[in-house]
């Protein structure tokens, strides 16, 4: 399981690999959180806030981008850093879960959007799930 950040002109690219689809979504949320607040999702801060996300999509890649977009929007509105997922139910075209996090006063990075550009949720040669996501900063 890994979160890797790569350089991309004007933006940030994040590559995630995980053993299961559930873990892939969980790591992607954590990886995005660590961009919004550096190492913000590596802390043991009590996750006092939670929100439910329920989405349907044409495929699992769209689900991933839409899931992160909703979590990002909720972060701005609730002034909360979401780091973890609970009660996840996921299929190829739907996801229902609870995201949890903690209130924050400031952000290190203002992500404008989670983009679909070049994103594809798939399995790699090691049979792990992987996705590359570009954030518009």
């Amino acid at each position: 399981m890994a979160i890797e950040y790569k350089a991309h002109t004007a933006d940030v690219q994040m590559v995630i690999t995980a053993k299961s689809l559930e873990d892939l979504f969980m790591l992607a949320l954590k990886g995005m959180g660590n961009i919004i607040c550096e190492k913000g999702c590596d802390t043991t801060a009590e996750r006092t806030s939670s929100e439910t996300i329920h989405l349907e999509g044409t495929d699992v890649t769209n689900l991933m981008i839409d899931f992160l977009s909703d979590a990002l929007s909720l972060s701005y509105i609730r002034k909360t850093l979401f780091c973890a997922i609970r009660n996840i139910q996921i299929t190829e075209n739907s996801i229902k879960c609870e995201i949890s996090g903690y209130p924050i006063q400031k952000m290190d990075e203002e992500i404008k959007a989670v983009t679909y550009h070049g994103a594809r949720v798939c399995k790699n040669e090691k049979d792990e799930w992987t996705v590359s996501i570009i954030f518009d900063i």
Partner: protein
Amino acid sequence: MKKVQKSDLIRLEDYLWEIPSSFRPDMRVPARVLASEELLDDIIDDRSLNQLVNVATLPGIQVASLVMPDVHEGYGFPIGGVAATLYPDGVISPGGIGYDINCGVRLMISALKIEQLRNRMESLSKEMYAQIPSGMGKGGFIHLDDAQMTDVLSNGANWAVKNGYGETGDLESIESHGRLEDADPDMVSEMAKKRGSGQLGTIGSGNHFVEVGYVDEIFEPDIARAYDLEKGQLVILIHTGSRGLGHQVATDNIRHMIAAMPKYGIELPDRELACVPFNSVEGQNYFKAMCAAANYAWCNREVISWEMRKAWKNTFGDAGGSLNLLYDVAHNIAKIEEYEIDGRNRKLIVHRKGATRAFGPGFKELPPRLSEAGQPVIIPGSMGTCSYVLAGTNISKKITFGSCCHGAGRRLSRRAARRIVNAPALKEELADKGIFVQAGSFKGIAEEAPLAYKDVNMVVRSIQDSGVAKIVAKLKPVGVVKG
């Protein structure tokens, strides 16, 4: 897909290059690059021209997909791109406008000269930092209730003027007079409205800023006179957009369009190019929401000008005189405009993503004082270098759908810039050159370091040599406030 090589381009004119539509079978039109050969060599390095080729596949696209000399790789459309599709059934694509709808710049001009600033830049920039909220997720002084939000989304900069946050005289000097009449607040989601409710009058982060500078050099004295620009004059440059509201409008609508595309039989090489026919329900919903977000952005820049005027007054008192708006222009927007195509006048949906409208003399929307000179085009350079004021020409309508560049153009990623740049040292180096930087973080300074950008001098020279705009004045910075 094969990467575009220099050998794939044909030179049409000194500053115009073309990738023929035979390059890839799915291209509907050629792809064109406006740039000097030197800049082209740089442009070829990233994948921006492959992205330009993808844009040439959009249904209804006319003549050619285009990029300006400040182009760089984006996430779908290249940044610095122009795409015109046929009205009313050609497509509209939120990706061709960008997430920061109506990101743009305005230039305010003062009656003071650089000599009169003396050693007051530090106190002015501290005053600006206090008056103009900047930085990550920072809220503003105004909190809009539902009725006020509807008013802002419908009336743009007019709302600020009507409510004491702007000046009536500014309105004629804003692109579209600061209001797009097709805006429909009901097409903006509740999530977007919530994100925008507390952000009016804020700069945000990234490459957004408020800069104090002075006119260093005049190149076109007659036009400069019409623009009220004089050598040594202090000026204010404001660069920001529609904040979280615009980001959410784009996010919402790209998602809707991806779901709707199969219904219209649209297949694209990149989901981020998502588009639907302009006259479809989804196309109209987006266009009306985009116009509303554009209105929010114009209102935002008007409120920031009001904050800037307060900072100016608090620093200089009555001796500072007034700050007048030269012009405010968008560089992330879609507009319905008319062009002659194959001898016929056609209405087009002109997408500009990181490209500035650059209409020439006689353009009816311009106030009388600017009409003969042509539309002012404001081109911010990188932090600590220089910026330019250009004047649009009527050639732009023939070559670039009335567009030109929007800045210097990024060449290094933010991450790469952070790795290379020692931000505290850069801040001191700029201070030694007489440029005072007030920023929320050293990270932000490193990311916007001059070496992360192309040479803006080369970019505007390319524009001038192509004929689409004339260089009127060069501006040098003395103080920058950024997020």
